[in-house]
């Protein structure tokens, strides 16, 4: 039995995110292995990896056309070397050339700074770009949240159905072999 499904709206960010995130969940769940009672450290590690997977999946669903998604993907792909770079950039912060200034003097510098830290890649862009990226970022975060809820709900249903299926015999096995 094939699990090939061609969605009628393949370009939707929500669909791409779902694919990407559920694929990651599959992988992570497979790697659970035979350990019946994993250590605390292992459990927290898995929690962390699922968190990272959700942000990575959203960024990759958006692709490279947005500065914030590029920043997220870059950060994840360069995790180890990124830490070293961050240290370096703090030292050179004073010598960095200033981005195009916010011409609205009534806007508190403090809030703009906070925003730049919250939006991935926000540090290096001019103010207009920042506002633009922020709007898109917020929309995607919302999509991310609602989609995770749906995945959660459907997994709950799946687990319950599986348990009923166990009673009926063979249904769970059939679904698991689908994956091969």
């Amino acid at each position, binding site marked *: 039995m094939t699990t090939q499904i061609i969605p009628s709206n393949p370009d939707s960010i929500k669909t791409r995110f779902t694919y990407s995130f559920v694929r990651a969940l599959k992988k992570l*769940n497979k790697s659970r292995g035979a350990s019946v009672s994993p250590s605390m450290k292992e459990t927290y590690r898995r929690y962390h990896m699922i968190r990272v997977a959700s942000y990575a999946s959203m960024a990759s669903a958006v692709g490279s056309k947005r500065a914030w998604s590029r920043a997220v993907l870059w950060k994840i792909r360069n995790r180890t070397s990124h830490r070293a770079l961050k240290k370096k950039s703090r030292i050179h912060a004073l010598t960095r050339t200033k981005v195009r200034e916010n011409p609205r003097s009534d806007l508190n510098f403090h809030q703009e700074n906070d925003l730049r830290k919250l939006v991935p890649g926000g540090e290096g862009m001019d103010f207009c770009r920042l506002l633009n990226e922020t709007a898109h970022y917020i929309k995607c975060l919302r999509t991310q949240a609602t989609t995770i809820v749906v995945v959660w709900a459907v997994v709950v249903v799946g687990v319950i159905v599986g348990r009923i299926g166990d009673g009926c015999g063979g249904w769970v096995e059939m679904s698991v072999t689908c994956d091969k």
Partner: protein
Amino acid sequence: MSSRRSQSTQPGVSRISDEQIADLVSKLQQLIPEIRTRRRSDKVSASKVLQETCNYIRSLHREVDDLSDRLSALLESTDGDSAQAAIIRSLLIKLVWSNWSP
């Protein structure tokens, strides 16, 4: 409000007008539940919009992390095989669902 063009000291750099900024701030305002207004002309200070935007993004981050942890807990509490089957089913069902509500 007259549209003042901001002076740029660098040649060839495009100027950001007050109107452009006001427009972007107004668009942001519509996204934030705390200060969303029915009419875009309703005045909320740009300062407040930025402030609330930061708060909103922080709360969205918390929400996403919380939901992700709940999902992790769910998967952790089911045995590997049922979890795997449930995940696969979730993909199929989710795709069918998203085709009905894009």
